[in-house]
């Protein structure tokens, strides 16, 4: 390995990058666009679910309950129905996602307290609706008792469960998504850029010329990949700044820790890109393969769905992915003010990934020259 040759490759790669407007636009465009899309569009709070109400009791209390539910804004009562069959029909048509059923014996059920007093019917085909319904289940019925029976001893004046939300008290979605987005955007751009950059040399025939020179495969690979480490860090900075300015996402931990974690994670993504480049025959193929690694990462890492809710097998699989570990790291540092030392296991996992994947890639790289 000679420094002069390595730097020659880096210089050449930067020159080419500067001339490739599309790639350049992607470097800045992808993070900006994704940040704005995900930041504004992903909202974990479910509100304004279209709903129907079937009030068979029609007492003062039942009407009060319906009014309370409506004012919580979780449900948006668009239909008032008189028969249970109507609920089934409306739900099948997709006109409502939930329905509140208050039985004729609501008052006596409420008093006996050994049976549920009222019912929420939800559309189980939508996960987020189910989650919202669970919130409704803990709706404090006791609070309806003020006025008439408020002074009676033994009756709870407060909801049975109080939920305290740490780190994100206002339950603002961007606080959760933006740190994760750093990982997702890097997983996408870093893997694609490196895989394509290396395959491009082969596809355009440059490789044949290069092999006849003293340039070694390792010098070529590292030289081509190094500029992308810089690009990755620029993207991280861009997301942090936009996240702060547009969504008010804080960095509670140390910035140095953020960049160290990001660098290790970038290395992991680049290793994956190099590995893909040893298998792909064309730039198009390398792009397809990059997406193949990107999709399971985004789905299983805990970015899209709660990690703890996944089956054990999926969790084990997700432990392989760099994004899973980076998500834990970046959320820890940015939101919980955690130190890197407290999460050394995640860093170690990322390092192991880099070493193993890079070793396989370099071995395969030598083979592909034949």
């Amino acid at each position, binding site marked *: 390995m000679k420094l002069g040759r390595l730097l020659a490759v880096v210089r050449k790669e930067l020159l080419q990058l500067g001339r490739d407007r599309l790639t350049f636009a992607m470097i800045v465009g992808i993070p900006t666009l994704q940040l704005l899309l995900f930041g504004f569009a992903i909202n974990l709070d479910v509100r304004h679910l279209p709903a129907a109400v079937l009030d068979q009791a029609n007492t003062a209390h039942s009407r009060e309950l319906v009014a309370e539910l409506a004012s919580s804004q979780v449900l948006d009562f668009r239909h008032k129905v008189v028969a249970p069959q109507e609920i089934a029909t409306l739900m099948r048509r997709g006109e409502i996602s939930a329905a509140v059923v208050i039985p004729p014996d609501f008052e006596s059920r409420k008093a006996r307290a050994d049976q549920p007093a009222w019912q929420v019917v939800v559309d189980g085909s939508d996960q987020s609706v189910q989650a919202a319904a669970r919130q409704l289940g803990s709706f404090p019925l006791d609070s309806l008792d003020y006025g008439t029976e408020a002074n009676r001893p033994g009756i709870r004046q407060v909801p049975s469960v109080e939920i305290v939300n740490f780190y994100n008290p206002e339950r603002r979605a961007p606080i959760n998504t933006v740190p994760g987005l750093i990982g997702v955007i890097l997983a996408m751009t870093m893997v694609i850029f490196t895989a394509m950059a290396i395959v491009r040399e082969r596809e*355009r025939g440059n490789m044949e010329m290069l092999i006849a020179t003293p340039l070694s495969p390792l010098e070529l690979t590292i030289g081509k990949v190094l500029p992308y480490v810089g690009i990755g860090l620029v993207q991280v900075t861009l997301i942090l700044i936009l996240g702060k300015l547009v969504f008010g996402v804080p960095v509670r931990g140390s910035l140095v820790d953020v960049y160290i974690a990001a660098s290790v994670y970038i290395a992991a993504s680049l290793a994956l890109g190099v590995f893909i480049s040893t298998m792909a025959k064309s730039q198009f193929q390398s792009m397809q393969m990059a997406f193949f690694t990107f999709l399971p990462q985004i789905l299983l890492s805990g970015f899209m769905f709660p990690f703890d809710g996944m089956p054990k097998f999926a969790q084990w699989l997700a432990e392989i992915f760099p994004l899973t570990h980076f998500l834990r790291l970046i959320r820890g540092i940015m939101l919980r003010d955690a130190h890197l030392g407290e999460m050394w296991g995640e860093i170690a996992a990322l390092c192991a990934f880099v070493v193993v994947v890079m070793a396989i890639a370099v071995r395969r790289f030598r083979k592909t020259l034949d």
Partner: protein
Amino acid sequence: MPDDTPVIVARGLTKRFGKLTAVDHLDLTVRRAEVYGFLGPNGCGKSTTIRMLCGLLEPTSGDIEVLGHKLPQDAEVVKRSIGYMTQKFSLYEDLSVVENLDFLAAVHGLAGAKKKQRLDEMYERYHLGNLKKQIAGTMSGGQKQRLALAGSVLHEPELLLLDEPTSAVDPQSRRDFWDALFDLSEAGTTLLVSTHYMDEAERCHRLAILDRGRLVANGSPHELMENLPGSTFRIECTEPRRLQDALIKEERVLGVAQIGSSLRVLTDRRDDGGWLRDRVHSIDAKAEVENVAPNLEDVFVASTHKRAQATEEKAA
């Protein structure tokens, strides 16, 4: 001028890709400072051989010694003193002339005054001085070819391998290019050039004719023509097309080509062609048959024809 020091020695060189034998037991000796030609149709194994000789491909079997080093074991050492010009333009199309050459200079470890001197020499010799800032992808075929040549000789290689270097350029650029090759040869560089142009092959000091992976003839163009195991005739006639159809069926005729209004006939033995004259006159009494000197194309047809016959007999 060529001397007797061998620069390339290959013995029993063979390369198989699965079931296909691309190069079949090739023996080859190229001497210092000669321009050695590889002549053969597309797919005869020229490119594969060249790739093995510069360490890009590992041979399936056989021995190669280039500049006194064994390949593929010493490939890294050999790569420092050889230049390779690929068939397709393989410098960076999105970089300028200066950027491409700067990159190659750095890859070859040229720096400082030496680098500047070599680069200036390249701009001057290959007329690239006023194209320095031009992006390679926007240059003409001839300009690209000059840049590619400059890139492959920048580090003053002892051996230069060129794979069909003139396939994408006009005749004038081809002539200039060959002048440049002879300048290099005069300066002591050994050149191995593959081509499918007869006129280019004829300019080589020595050449090898390849056919389906085998070496079917080698020597200087003059020797090859002298030793042609056949005779060549020119026939002036009124209906060349009809005569050609009749002659091609003759067993002793290896090839008939129409050139303008005359026919060029290659036979499989060295004689005055009395039998041919009789045959021609029986078809067209007014035709004139004249014995002419063989050219390289005749050598090419004769050597590849022999091989084709041998395979047919083997199959039968």
